[in-house]
């Protein structure tokens, strides 16, 4: 909807501007010299896009339509509508090209700010694209015969100039005015002067053109009147000859055919425009026969009164009271002889002569076709002849008519030829053409008609009592000859000036707008920078202050002002502000100020000052500078480093107090920090090692090694942030003792400097403990070996010997001896077993034990298989729940569960079949595997005792065993990182819970 409205708007705008342009057209062959519409539609297409094409085209077609219709409605009826519509195409194509080119080079929204913008715009839209419309349009007009080939150059040129000026003057202004991105002010600045100039030019133009037209038209009128007069007199001369024929009939009562012919003998040669002269007497009805007889006799041929049929053929005359048949005829060869024809029978003739028979002499009508069907512009004159004797009677009836046939063209041709050379075209409008204008015109009047192709001067012209219309028009040559080119040049110049003015205004205002934009942008930037600077100044923790040579504070930031009590801060600027310092400090600070003013700057200096009751340490630097007026000022930058110093002290004290030795070693290998722990470890005082190579702290043999020395390991971390694992190295005490240490180093980078930080620990004690452990393990190993072999052998021999004696020498022993020997045997066997148990216990985990992923279910099944005979013997029932997989040694696990299983079977109620349940549950990071039975149970008070080696709760007579099973179980569980315990809460038997890590 919006788009349709826009299209309609553009179309209407073009139509209006087109009509305005038409008013500026010059006669007759020149197109309008200024065609603002071309600029308007170009701007519309450029800004609005190609979707406005329909509106542009409709406007263009409408302007052409109205131009043609306004000039000549008849022309409209003769021109097919298609041709008129075709005339809308050239302006549309031209505007489209202009819009496209400008978009191509300047983009869719040019602001026409620079010379380049305006230049490219003007050239693309103006001289270049304006070639299109005149070329196409002139070609079309020529093809339709609306302009002659002669006038093509002038038409083309004026059309081109008109379009170009229209585009140059209007397009930039329209583009600027309708561009929303351009400020109203600039629009007004450009448009207002331009509109004023434009109107001045247009007014001048109208005045000039009116003047020129007036002059030209006046000339045309004068010339036309002269032509009309010439024509009139030429005709009068011809008519006078005919009138003289009437005298012949007045002179005698009867004129014979020969007399008539004799009288007219020379008329055709003297006056070639006369084609025929006829005598038509009045014959009343009663005399017809007598007349016909007399005429036949006089003319020597058969004579009969006839009248003309519709096709021109001769018919017997109808019955009338009177006839005017042609009797004598003298005529040129080309004219059809019409002897006997009664002209009054022709309705037109009757109408012409019957109206007023008495009034005028001459009656005429354009009836050449009667005589000469092939020729136009023939005029017939009827000259009545009266009976002189009856002249005084009222209602006099002529006794006959002298009829003259003229060819006006013969007369006209001469005059037209003469005037065509002077540039005036003469045309006689008759019939329909004349009828379009004649009714509006009075007799002997004239009118100017103007259309796009020029002005016509129309003048009524009377021949006898017939009114004709003479049309005078100016030939291109006439106009060219009379065009006031100076005026047109001035006009074109004025438009060009308007264009230049518009370009100038656009560039100037554009430059202004661009400058304004830059200024406002820079102002904003400055404002931003100032704001930024202020925010920075007020938020940096450092103090910033500016002083003059009188030590007065000129400016200071928030951090600086905090030196002063809050209520005093607003008064600091303008005075020295030194009163917060002690007299000594004041002197010192002033000295520094002076140094800065004389030398240009100071080095960073440290000062301690108490203010507002707090001790502060400041690092300050002062720098001299000049302000814009050349005065010397001093910028002070001070940083409160109290916290940093405190923190550093803290850090140093922590560093010194660290239990581990901590050294900082430069990249060169020189020690720079050596803490207290280091002093203790190495026996050196800090002062003795700082600045020395780190090799001082190790045995020489190690220091000589290519790798594996202190320096090697300290510098091992190649990159900042890297660190090494601890390495074991030999170190040398100040007293020469060699001892083992751990050393770990890391590479530290602070700012541009990097160094190594080494942590050392004396591991002599650990190493000794390790060695002790290893030795004790070895001793245990040796003991176990001895026990296995050497300790057991005598016992075995004791047992075997007692056994042998009891078997083979029983006869030699009395009962007491047998009993004692039995005790020997039994005790030695028992001791033997105890040693075995002890060995078994000590061997848990002593050898290399392979750990793997094992299934406890499998373990328990293997155990059941191992103790099958005991299960069968006791009738035990075993219930195995779902058991997990764990990481462990299968043989040890089998031993653990076998011990528990055997206990469960062993410590049963007499005559009660054992029921054993093995189950597992997850508890946190552990699997809790429990083995529960329905046996005799264990008193909770023994819950710890039962896991001790050789601890038994029952006499050997009741339940055999060495009392080491559960101790082994505990050792195995602990070896696996778990534990075993007695579930005190369990009643109805005993329940052991083994906790194993769930991994």
């Amino acid at each position, binding site marked *: 909807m919006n788009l349709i409205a826009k299209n309609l708007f553009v179309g209407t705008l073009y139509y209006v501007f087109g009509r305005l342009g038409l008013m500026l057209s010059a006669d007759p062959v020149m197109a309008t010299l200024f065609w603002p519409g071309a600029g308007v539609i170009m701007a519309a297409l450029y800004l609005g896009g190609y979707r406005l094409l329909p509106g542009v085209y409709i406007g263009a077609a409408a302007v052409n339509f109205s131009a043609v219709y306004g000039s000549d409605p008849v022309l409209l009826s003769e021109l097919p509508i298609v041709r008129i519509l075709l005339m809308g195409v050239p302006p549309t194509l031209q505007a489209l090209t202009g819009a496209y080119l400008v978009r191509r080079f300047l983009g869719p929204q040019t602001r026409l700010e620079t010379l380049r913008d305006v230049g490219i715009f003007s050239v693309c839209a103006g001289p270049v694209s304006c070639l299109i419309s005149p070329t196409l349009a002139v070609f079309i007009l020529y093809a339709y015969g609306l302009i002659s080939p002669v006038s093509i150059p002038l038409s083309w040129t004026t059309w081109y100039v008109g379009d170009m000026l229209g585009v140059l003057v209007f397009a930039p202004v329209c583009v600027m005015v309708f561009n929303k991105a351009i400020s109203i002010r600039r629009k007004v600045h450009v448009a207002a002067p331009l509109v004023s100039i434009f109107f001045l030019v247009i007014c001048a133009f109208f005045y000039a053109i009116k003047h020129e037209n007036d002059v030209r038209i006046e000339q045309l009128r004068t010339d036309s009147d002269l032509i009309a007069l010439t024509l009139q007199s030429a005709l009068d001369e011809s008519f006078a000859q005919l009138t003289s024929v009437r005298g012949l009939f007045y002179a005698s009562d009867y004129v014979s055919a020969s007399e008539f012919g004799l009288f007219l003998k020379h008329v055709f040669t003297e006056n070639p425009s006369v084609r025929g002269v006829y005598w038509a007497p009045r014959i009343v009805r009663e005399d017809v026969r007598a007349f016909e007889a007399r005429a036949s006799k006089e003319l020597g041929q058969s004579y009969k009164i006839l009248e003309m049929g519709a096709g021109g053929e001769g018919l017997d005359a109808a019955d009338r009271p009177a006839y005017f048949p042609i009797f004598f005829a003298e005529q040129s060869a080309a004219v059809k002889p019409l002897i006997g024809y009664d002209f009054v029978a022709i309705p037109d003739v009757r109408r012409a002569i019957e109206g007023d028979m008495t009034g005028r002499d001459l009656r005429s009508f354009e009836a050449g076709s009667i005589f000469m069907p092939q020729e136009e512009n023939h005029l017939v004159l009827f000259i009545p002849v009266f009976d002189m004797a009856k002249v005084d009677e009222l209602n006099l009836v002529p006794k006959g008519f002298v009829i003259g046939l003229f060819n006006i063209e013969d007369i006209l041709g001469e005059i037209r030829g003469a005037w065509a050379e002077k540039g005036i075209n003469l045309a006689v409008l008759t019939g329909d053409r004349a009828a379009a204008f004649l009714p509006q015109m009075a007799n002997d009047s004239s009118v100017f008609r103007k259309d796009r192709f020029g002005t016509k001067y129309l003048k009524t012209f009377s021949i006898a009592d017939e009114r004709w219309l003479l049309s005078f028009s100016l030939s291109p040559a006439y106009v060219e000859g009379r065009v006031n080119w100076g005026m047109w040049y001035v006009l074109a110049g004025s438009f060009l000036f308007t264009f230049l003015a518009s370009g100038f205004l656009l560039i100037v205002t554009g430059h202004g707008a661009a400058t304004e934009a830059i200024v406002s942008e820079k102002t904003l930037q400055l404002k931003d920078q100032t704001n930024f600077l202020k925010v920075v100044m007020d938020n940096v923790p450092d103090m910033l202050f500016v002083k003059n040579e009188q030590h007065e504070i000129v400016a200071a930031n928030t951090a600086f002002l905090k030196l002063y009590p809050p209520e005093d801060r607003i008064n600091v600027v303008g005075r020295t502000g030194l009163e917060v310092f002690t007299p000594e400090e004041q002197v010192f600070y002033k000295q520094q100020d002076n140094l800065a003013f004389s030398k240009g700057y100071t080095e960073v200096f440290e000062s301690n000052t108490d203010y507002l009751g707090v001790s502060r340490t400041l690092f300050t630097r002062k720098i001299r500078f000049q302000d814009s007026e050349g005065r010397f000022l001093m910028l002070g930058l001070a940083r409160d480093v109290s916290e940093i110093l405190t923190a550093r002290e803290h850090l140093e004290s922590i560093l010194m107090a660290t239990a581990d030795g901590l050294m900082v070693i430069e990249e060169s290998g020189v020690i720079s920090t050596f803490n207290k722990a280091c002093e203790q470890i190495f026996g050196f005082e800090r002062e003795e090692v700082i600045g020395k190579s780190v090799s001082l702290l190790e045995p020489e043999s190690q220091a000589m090694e290519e790798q594996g020395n202190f320096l090697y390991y300290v510098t091992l971390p190649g990159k900042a942030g890297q660190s090494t694992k601890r390495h074991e190295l030999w170190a040398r005490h100040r007293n020469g003792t060699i001892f083992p240490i751990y050393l770990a180093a890391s590479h530290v980078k602070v700012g541009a400097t990097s160094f190594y930080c080494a942590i050392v620990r004396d591991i002599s004690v650990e190493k000794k403990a390790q060695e002790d452990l290893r030795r004790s393990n070895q001793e245990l190993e040796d003991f176990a070996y001895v026990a296995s072999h050497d300790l*057991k*052998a005598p016992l*075995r*021999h004791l047992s*075997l010997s007692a*056994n042998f004696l009891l078997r083979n020498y029983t006869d030699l022993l009395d009962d007491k001896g047998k009993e004692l020997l039995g005790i020997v045997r039994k005790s*030695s066997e028992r001791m*033997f077993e105890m040693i075995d148990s002890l*060995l078994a216990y000590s*061997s848990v985990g002593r050898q290399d034990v392979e750990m793997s992923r094992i299934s406890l279910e499998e373990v328990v099944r293997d155990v059941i298989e191992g103790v099958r005979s005991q299960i069968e013997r006791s009738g035990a029932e075993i219930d195995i729940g779902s058991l997990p997989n764990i990481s462990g040694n299968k043989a040890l696990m089998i031993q653990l569960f076998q011990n528990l299983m055997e206990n469960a079977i062993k410590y049963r109620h007499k005559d009660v079949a054992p029921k054993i349940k093995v189950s597992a549950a997850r508890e946190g990071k552990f699997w809790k595997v429990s083995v529960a039975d329905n046996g005799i149970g264990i008193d909770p008070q023994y819950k710890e005792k039962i896991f001790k080696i050789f601890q038994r709760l029952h006499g050997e007579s009741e339940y055999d065993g060495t009392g080491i099973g559960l101790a082994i179980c505990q050792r195995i569980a602990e070896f696996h990182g778990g534990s075993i315990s007695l579930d005190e809460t369990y009643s109805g038997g005993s329940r052991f819970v083994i906790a194993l890590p769930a991994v």
Partner: protein
Amino acid sequence: MAIQQSIDILLAEDEDTDAFFFEQALGASAVPNAVHRVKDGQQAVDFLRRKGEHRQAPRPHIIFLDINMPRLDGYDVLREIKADEGLRDIPVIIISGSSDESDIVKSYRNYAAAYVTKSKNLEDMSDLVKAVDSFWFQQARLPGF
């Protein structure tokens, strides 16, 4: 009934008591045997190599070897035998007072044919010897026998 060949047994055992009970138990065997006892590892090697006083020593069909012996211990002897091409085909049965796992593993690693522990009572001892007898002397076929 063919005359049964006697089995030559080398028993390397430093303990007289153990040797006594072993021979006692072996004496009950159905298979005729001759036990040649040496008291340490060196003697065992000399016996096998027919050195010194053992010049006339027979090549034993089977060797019973104690581990814990003076001079060369059982392992040393075992290694000697198994390294000697002329001797390595003789089965060596380790008899040890130790039931330590490491001893057992070590013996088999050195190609012992069996590892048996010395028993602390006579019944077990004769059971063991009977078992050895019935398997090694009666059921198993030994080289050269």
